[in-house]
C-alpha cells in the first residue's frame, strides 16, 4: 500500500479558480447587516402572553428591531473622553483635565498625549507602589519578575506538596496583574496594546508549561510592544509557552507537526483572511504589489513545518539542559537529514541550514506586505472600529511595511493610526468588552484596592469577571479573544459586565475584609458637592457624570438619571436631597449612600460608558 503520510510534497494539488477570484472579491464584499427593520418581528415581550399556557414571563418591553445602520445617532464625546475610551481603559478622575492641559487645541493635545503614551518611562508610579508590598518571596506577586529559567525550575519542574497551586501561581498572579495595571497604569495605551498582542499571540493560560511561564511569555511580548514586529515575532517563537501550546516542541524530523507553522501563517503574520489560498498549487499564485508571492497555500504550511523541525526549548531531553529556554535542536532539524530544499512562499532554504532556516522565513514573513496589511487591519479594528476604512488600512500597512527595518516600527504604526482623522471621528463602532467595562468602571470610581491573588475583595471581583467570558489569558484557541463588536454587545457580555459593576459598587461602602480600603462614595460625593443645599438630584447627576466620564450624557439619559435619583431620594429634581434624608450619613446602608452608588452604577452601565 502506498499511502502518503507526512511526506507532504506528495499531496496533490487542486487548482481552484473560484478560490483565486474570490480573494479580490472579498475585499469589498461585506454583506449588509442584519435583517432590516421591517423583516424582523421577534421580540422579547410579555405582551402576547395572554393566551399562553406558559408562565407569564415578564419581559420589560417589546424589543425594537435594530436599526439597519449603527452609530448614525450616536454623538461623539469631546476628544479627551473619546481618546480615553478608545486608546485606554477609560478615564480616571483627573485624566480628562490633564489631557486638555496638553495643548491649545485638540490636535495639539492628541499629538502630545500620543507622544507621551508611546514613550513610557520605566516607572509606572501607582502600579509600582501598589505592587511593592507583594513582591517578596511567598507574596502575592512573587513570580512576576522571575526569569524563564527560574519559572521553569520553581514552577514547571516543581513537584511536591501543593503542586497544582505552585505550578499555577504565576498564572494567577498574572491574571490579577492585568486588572491592577489596567486600573492604575499611567501607560494606558501600553496596557491596551499588551492585551492586543497577547491575544494576537494567544496561548491558553491554564495549560501545562504556560500556566507556570506566563510572566516570561507576557514579558517577551511587552519588550517589543513599541519596537519592531520581527523582533517580537522571533522572541515569541522562542518562548516555551508558545512552543508548547502549539506543539512545536514536538515538531521533529522525521515526524513534523504542522500546528505552529500553520498558526504563524494564519494568525501571527500573513493571516488567513486575505492571504490563505488553501489547497491550491503555490505556482498558480501571482505576486502582490511588492512583488512578493501573494499568499500561502497548504503546501507552504507543510514546508514551513519542516523548516521548524527542531525549533524547541531545553527540557532536559536529548542531553539538553532543563531550563525552559529556547533551544535549536539541529539533530531534529529537517535539513540535517534530507537533500531537498524547503520552499516557503518566495523563500528557498538550502540544504544543510541551521537556525537561520527559521529566521530567514520569519524575516520574510515579517516583511511581507500581506503581513503589513493583516496587522494594520487588526490594529485599526482594535483602535478605530470594526470594518475600518480601506484607505486607513492601506496607509497603515504602508507605514508598517516602509518601517519594517526600523527599531521603532510599531510605535510609528500606532502613531499613524491614533493621529488619523478616522480615529478622532469614529465613535461607537466598538463596544468595551467585559474586561474593559469592569476596569473602566473601577478607574472611573477611583477604586482603592491593591488588586492581587489570595485577597478576598480582589478574588470576589475576579470571580465575577471570570463569568463574563473574558477572563484574562483564558481564550481556548490561538485566535485570542475576538474583537468584533457584534460578538460582545449581546446580553451575556452586557449582563455579566453590569453585575460585576453593581457588585463592587454595592461592596464599596463595606470594609469587607479590612484590606479593601474604605471606598466611600457618599463621602466623595459630599467632597464634590460641599454645600448641603446644593445636593439636589440634578446637581448630583451632573457632578457625577462630569467626575466619572468627563462630559455630560445626552439630555434623555440625563433626565432619566435625575428621575431615578429623585425617586430614590424623595427629593424633587432641584430640591436638596438633604431635605429628605441625611446626606451626611455616610454609613454603608444609608439611603444617601445607596442613592450615590446606584447612580454611579447607572452612569457606568449606560450605553455611552460601554461604547468605544
Amino acid at each position, binding site marked *: *500500500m502506498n*499511502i*502518503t503520510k*507526512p511526506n507532504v510534497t506528495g499531496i496533490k494539488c487542486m487548482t481552484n479558480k*473560484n*478560490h483565486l477570484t474570490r480573494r479580490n472579491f*472579498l475585499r469589498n*464584499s461585506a*454583506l*449588509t447587516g*442584519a*435583517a432590516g427593520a421591517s*423583516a*424582523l*418581528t*421577534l*421580540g*422579547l415581550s410579555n405582551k*402576547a402572553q395572554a393566551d399562553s399556557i*406558559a*408562565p407569564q*414571563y*415578564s419581559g*420589560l*418591553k*417589546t*424589543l425594537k428591531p*435594530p436599526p439597519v445602520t449603527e*452609530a448614525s445617532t*450616536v454623538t461623539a464625546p469631546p476628544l479627551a473622553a473619546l481618546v480615553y475610551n478608545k486608546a485606554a481603559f477609560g478615564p480616571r478622575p483627573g485624566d480628562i483635565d490633564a489631557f486638555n492641559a496638553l495643548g491649545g487645541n485638540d490636535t495639539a493635545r492628541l499629538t502630545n498625549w500620543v507622544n507621551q503614551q508611546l514613550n513610557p518611562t520605566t516607572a509606572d508610579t501607582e502600579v509600582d507602589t501598589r505592587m511593592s508590598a507583594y513582591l517578596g518571596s511567598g507574596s502575592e506577586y512573587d513570580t512576576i519578575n522571575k526569569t524563564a529559567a527560574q519559572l521553569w525550575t520553581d514552577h514547571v519542574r516543581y513537584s511536591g506538596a501543593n503542586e497544582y497551586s505552585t505550578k499555577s501561581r504565576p498564572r494567577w498572579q498574572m491574571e490579577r496583574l492585568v486588572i491592577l495595571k489596567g486600573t492604575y497604569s499611567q501607560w494606558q495605551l501600553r496596557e491596551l496594546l499588551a492585551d492586543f498582542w497577547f491575544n494576537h499571540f494567544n496561548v491558553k493560560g491554564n495549560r501545562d508549561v504556560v500556566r507556570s511561564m506566563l510572566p516570561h511569555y507576557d514579558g517577551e511580548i511587552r519588550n517589543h510592544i513599541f519596537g519592531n514586529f520581527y523582533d517580537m515575532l522571533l522572541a515569541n517563537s522562542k518562548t516555551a509557552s508558545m512552543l508548547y501550546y502549539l*506543539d512545536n516542541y514536538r515538531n521533529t524530523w522525521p515526524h513534523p*507537526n504542522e500546528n505552529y507553522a*500553520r498558526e504563524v501563517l*494564519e494568525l501571527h503574520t500573513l493571516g488567513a*483572511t486575505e492571504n*490563505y489560498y*488553501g489547497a491550491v498549487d503555490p505556482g498558480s499564485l501571482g505576486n502582490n504589489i511588492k512583488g512578493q508571492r501573494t499568499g500561502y497555500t497548504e503546501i507552504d504550511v507543510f514546508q514551513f513545518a519542516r523548516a521548524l523541525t527542531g525549533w524547541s526549548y531545553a527540557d532536559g531531553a536529548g542531553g539538553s539542559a532543563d531550563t525552559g529556554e529556547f533551544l535549536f535542536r539541529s539533530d531534529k532539524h529537517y535539513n540535517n537529514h534530507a537533500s531537498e530544499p524547503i520552499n516557503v512562499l518566495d523563500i528557498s532554504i538550502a540544504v544543510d541550514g541551521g537556525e537561520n532556516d527559521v529566521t530567514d522565513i520569519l524575516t520574510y514573513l515579517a516583511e511581507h506586505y500581506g503581513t503589513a496589511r493583516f496587522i494594520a487591519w487588526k490594529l485599526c479594528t482594535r483602535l478605530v472600529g470594526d470594518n475600518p476604512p480601506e484607505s486607513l488600512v492601506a496607509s497603515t500597512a504602508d507605514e508598517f511595511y516602509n518601517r519594517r527595518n526600523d527599531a521603532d516600527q510599531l510605535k510609528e504604526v500606532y502613531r499613524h493610526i491614533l493621529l488619523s482623522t478616522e480615529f478622532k471621528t469614529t465613535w461607537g463602532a466598538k463596544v468595551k468588552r467585559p474586561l474593559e467595562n469592569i476596569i473602566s468602571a473601577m478607574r472611573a470610581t477611583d477604586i482603592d484596592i491593591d488588586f492581587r491573588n489570595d485577597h478576598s475583595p480582589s478574588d470576589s471581583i475576579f470571580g*465575577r469577571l471570570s*463569568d463574563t*467570558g473574558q477572563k484574562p489569558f483564558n481564550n*481556548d*484557541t490561538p485566535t485570542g479573544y475576538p474583537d468584533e463588536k*457584534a460578538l*460582545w454587545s*449581546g*446580553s*451575556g*457580555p*452586557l*449582563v455579566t459586565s453590569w*453585575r460585576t459593576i*453593581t*457588585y463592587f459598587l*454595592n461592596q464599596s461602602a463595606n470594609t469587607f475584609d479590612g484590606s479593601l480600603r474604605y471606598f466611600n462614595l457618599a463621602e466623595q460625593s459630599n467632597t464634590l458637592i460641599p454645600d448641603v443645599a446644593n445636593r439636589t438630584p440634578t446637581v448630583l447627576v451632573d457632578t457625577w457624570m462630569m467626575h466619572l466620564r468627563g462630559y455630560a450624557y445626552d439630555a*434623555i439619559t440625563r433626565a*432619566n438619571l435625575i*428621575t431615578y435619583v429623585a425617586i430614590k431620594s424623595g427629593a424633587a429634581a432641584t430640591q436638596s436631597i438633604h431635605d429628605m434624608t441625611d446626606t451626611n450619613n455616610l454609613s454603608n446602608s444609608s439611603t444617601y449612600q445607596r442613592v450615590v452608588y*446606584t447612580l454611579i452604577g*447607572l452612569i457606568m452601565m449606560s*450605553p455611552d460608558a460601554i461604547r468605544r
Partner: protein
Amino acid sequence: MTTNRRKFIKGMAASSVAAATLPNIAFAGGSSNNYSDNILIFVFLRGGIDGLSLLTPMDGHPDRGHYEALRSRGTMIPSNQLLSVGGGFGLHPAAGPMQELYQQNDLAIVRACGLPSYEVNRSHFEAERYAELGTPGNRFTQTGWLTRHLATATNYPPTIPLPAVVTESNVTFSFLKEPTAVSLRYPYAFDFDTTENGNFNSDQEQALANIYSAGNNELDSAGEQALAAMDIVDQVDFDAPPSNGASYPTRADNPSRLTTFGGKLQIMAQLIKQETGVRVGQADRGGWDTHNNQRNLIIGEGFYDKVRDISEAFKAFFTDLDVLAPGGGTWADRTTMLVCSEFGRRAFDNADAGTDHGWATNTLVIGGGVNGGRQYGQWPGLAPDDLFQSADLRGTVDYRSVWTEILLKRLHNNQIHQIFPGFSESEYKPLGVVSGSALEPDFNNDPGLIYKDSFE
C-alpha cells in the same frame, strides 16, 4: 439577588407535568402563540472532530485494512471494541448512549459531510465562519445562518420570550447580529449582583431600561434586550430536576457537578420545558483539535472522554425532553438536534498519536423527526486514491444539504436563498435524514432583503 421573583414561578412552571395538564388554550383557534413550532438545537463541536474515530470501519468492511494502515501510530480502534451500527461501521467505544439512540431510530449519521469541495478550508477560524455564517468562502458575512432563518421564518408568533438562546458567553457566529439571541452561559450570573432591598434594584433596572430604550442604535437595542432577558431568565427555575431520571454527564474529578457540556444541555432543556419559547438554540463543545495524544481508548481528558461526554449529554437531553408538551406530543418529538464540526481530521494519524486538520467528518441528527437508525451520505472510501489530496476523507455531502433539509421539513422555512446565498438548486441533495412535509425551497438568486452583496 432578586430571588424573590424567581420563587414565584417555582413549583408552577418548573414542572412539565404542570404545564402538560394545564388547559390547552394556546392552540384553540390557532392562537398566535404557536407552540407547535419545532425546535432546533445546533451543537457545534469546535476544533474539528476526528470523524474516523467516531464512526469507524469494522472488520469485514472493505476499508478496514486501509483504516488500520492509516491509523497505525496510536489512534487505531480495534474492531472488537467498536459499537456496531451496521453497514460495516461501528461507533466509538465510549459512544454507548449514542448507539442506544441510534438503535431507537432517534439518531442518524451523515457520513463524509463538510464544506463544499470548492471551499475546503483547513483553518479552524475560517471553516467555522464558513459553516456558521452559512456562506462557504466568505467569512465577512455580517449575519449568521440562524439569524437569517429567524429573520425570514413566517411561522413564528410576533413575540416570543426567548426565541434564540446560546449557552455560551458570547453569541455565536450562527447568530451573529441576531437581536433576540440571548447568550446565557451561567444562569446564576445573569442578574445584577447586589444586596439591595427597598426596591433600589428594581428601580435601577427600570432606569437603565429607560436609558437604553431611549437610544436607537444596535447597542441600545442590545441593552434593552439584555434587561428583558434578565427578567425572563430570572423566572426560570434552574434547580428543576431533569425529567424521567435523565442523567446528564458529571465531571470525573467531581461527580457532584455536571460536565460543562452536560450543564449546557440541561439549561437548554430547562428553558424548553419551562416554555420560554426557545425555537433555535446553540450549545458548543470544544476540545476536538487533537494534534497529539488523542487518547481514543484511554480514559482521562482525551477523545474517549469527550465522546462519552457528548453521548451521555445527548441521551440525557432527549430523555429529559421526553415529556408531554402543550399542543400535543412531547418536547423531544418537536426538538431536532444538529451536531456539526468545522472539519474532520487527516485520514492518517501523525507521529504524535494525533491527527491534523482535514476535510469531511460526520454530522449527527438526533431527536424529533429524524429518520434515525440509518447512515446517510456516500462513503468515499479510504483507499489511497479515494482520499482527498492523498490525505483527507473526501466530502461527499455539502453540509448545506443537511441543514437545508431541516429548514424545509422541520423549521418550515423555505427561504434558502436568504439563509445560504449562492447555494444552488443543483447542489441541494436531500438525503431524507428527517421526515416531515418539505416546503418547496426557494433558491431564487435575487439579492434579497437580507443577504446583499455590496460588491455587485
